[in-house]
């Protein structure tokens, strides 16, 4: 993770008006307005997609592979997550989607929900181990994992070391392809994830999970949704059937992963702001005071993955649709072959604290900078208006000390200075006028003075 982190949120500069909407909503203060448009600070961005959702000018875009990328591979496998199933109106059978994906050119489809059921089984096993730090925090949402690695050093160890369902699905899909088609090389096979969010795109691009990424391309759920609409219309009763159960599909919405742990000592939260509050509290609470909490599921998006920034349907509507779709499915048809969790299903390394926030690697220098920040902040209006291009006065003070901006960007201070200048100037103008004019004519001078005052 030492190399430059690649993000999946980008900005179309021409569309950005430099308004402060995204600036104020970014949970990690990663955005600044510079030269009239937003700039995302790469080391702070967690790819949560909030800025994409709130931008009134649609200037923020998620970066992902487009469907044309399929042609790169000889044998293509689609990985649809359960959140995809909740996107369609009047859909009563998941088989239509699976079949539609094949019509779009995929040679095989491997449902992420099936792998999710395996992860649920592994989680149940993992939290029973006596050597794990409680509460165990789900590793499924990459935005949360990145957030923890950046801001919650103490909680890094709590993250479950087992890979999220998408990676395990990718691994199994590749194994299956190789088994069924021994003539294929690794390069021939393209494992393509249909992502509901930009976060999963970054996750794959940065090889976060494994030595060799199991996923080859990540396409947007929105793109796939529209492509599927065209092919799904023509179909009769589908010949494909879903292999996932209630538990796997439950992972698409908050609480699904937790309830599948079969242990009521869990906490499930969604929405990045709520997640931050939960993490803050976990971070500063003594273990004994956590009420025996065993498992924590945090989803950066409202309602969970159905709320991702690359989905189509409203998350609550998608959730309701999923309820209907999973109604008559078996509970969990996918079970691990044995108790042993394969090595390939673990993260390649543990999540490490990344102190991006540190002002300087040198403590004395950091101290000096902090003192300066505090003294600058005292002189700022502390109204967090955002006009300077920083989300808060505190962030502005930090930017000044880091040399990224200058104090005169503060419009409140500038306005005050301008008024002082005007006051001073008015007096001077009056004095200057009085001196040369007073010996000759007082009368003509008076109305002028009144005029400037008004």
């Amino acid at each position: 993770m030492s190399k430059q982190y690649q993000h999946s949120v980008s900005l179309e500069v021409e569309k950005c008006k430099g308004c402060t909407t995204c600036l104020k909503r970014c949970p990690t203060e990663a955005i600044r307005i510079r030269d009239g448009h937003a700039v995302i600070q790469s080391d702070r961005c967690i790819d949560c997609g909030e800025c994409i959702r709130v931008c009134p000018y649609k200037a923020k875009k998620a970066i992902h592979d487009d469907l044309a990328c399929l042609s790169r591979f000889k044998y293509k496998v689609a990985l649809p997550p359960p959140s995809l199933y909740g996107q369609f109106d009047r859909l009563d059978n998941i088989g239509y989607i699976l079949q539609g994906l094949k019509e779009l050119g995929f040679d095989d489809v491997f449902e992420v929900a099936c792998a999710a059921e395996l992860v649920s089984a592994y989680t149940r096993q993992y939290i029973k181990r006596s050597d794990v730090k409680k509460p165990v925090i789900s590793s499924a949402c990459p935005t949360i994992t990145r957030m923890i690695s950046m801001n919650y050093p103490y909680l890094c160890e709590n993250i479950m070391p087992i890979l999220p369902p998408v990676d395990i699905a990718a691994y199994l899909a590749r194994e299956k392809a190789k088994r069924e088609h021994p003539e294929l090389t690794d390069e021939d096979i393209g494992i393509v994830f249909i992502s509901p969010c930009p976060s999963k795109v970054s996750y794959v691009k940065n090889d976060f999970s494994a030595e060799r990424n199991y996923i080859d391309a990540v396409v947007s759920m929105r793109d796939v949704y529209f492509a599927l609409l065209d092919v799904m219309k023509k179909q009769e009763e589908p010949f494909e059937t879903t292999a996932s159960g209630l538990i796997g599909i439950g992972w698409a919405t908050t609480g699904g992963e937790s309830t599948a742990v079969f242990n009521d000592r869990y906490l499930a939260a969604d929405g990045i702001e709520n997640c931050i509050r939960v993490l803050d509290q976990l971070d500063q609470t003594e273990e004994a005071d956590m009420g025996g909490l065993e498992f924590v599921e945090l989803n950066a998006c409202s309602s969970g993955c159905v709320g991702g920034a690359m989905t189509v349907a409203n998350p609550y509507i998608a959730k309701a649709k999923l309820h209907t779709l999973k109604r008559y499915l078996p509970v969990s048809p996918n079970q691990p072959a044995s108790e042993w969790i394969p090595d390939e299903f673990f993260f390649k390394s543990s999540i490490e604290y990344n102190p991006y926030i540190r002002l300087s690697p040198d403590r004395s220098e950091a101290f000096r900078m902090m003192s300066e920040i505090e003294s600058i902040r005292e002189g700022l209006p502390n109204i967090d208006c955002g006009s300077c291009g920083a989300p808060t006065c505190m962030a502005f003070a930090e930017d000044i000390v880091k040399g990224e901006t200058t104090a005169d960007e503060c419009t409140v201070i500038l306005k005050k200075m301008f008024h002082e200048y005007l006051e001073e100037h008015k007096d001077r103008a009056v004095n200057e006028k009085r001196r040369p004019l007073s010996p000759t004519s007082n009368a003509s001078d008076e109305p002028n003075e009144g005029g400037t005052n008004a």
Partner: protein
Amino acid sequence: MNEPIRFHFDVDGENFSSAGEASVTVKKRLRQLGYPPDVIRKVSVAMYEGEINMVIHAHGGEADIEVGKSEIVIILRDKGPGIANVDLAMQEGYSTARDNIRALGFGAGMGLPNMKKYTDSMHIDTEVGVGTTITMKVLL
């Protein structure tokens, strides 16, 4: 190292939902200064417990944090009822919190013991009817 850095916070006694905000801010500052996770953990648990105590028992108060060369000093001042029996208050599980506060998950009687546990020294200066000042130090 330079002069110690001081942070001051007013802890709002009326608002349970904002309780703990000062410790979140301090935590961030310590990360910015590059302190190791275990030091940050100690300061934030001790301060959080103290902050919650001030909200529960004393209608809020003030928190002053001094980050110095060899230690971090946390001073929590309130004008609350004071602690009648400090030894009793230091016992794990002892609490005078009202039921409505316990219902919020606070008042488990672990506040002061945890503060002591997570800091290298703790001094309680209290007078019934006048208020309490708690000074905690985390050595670096």
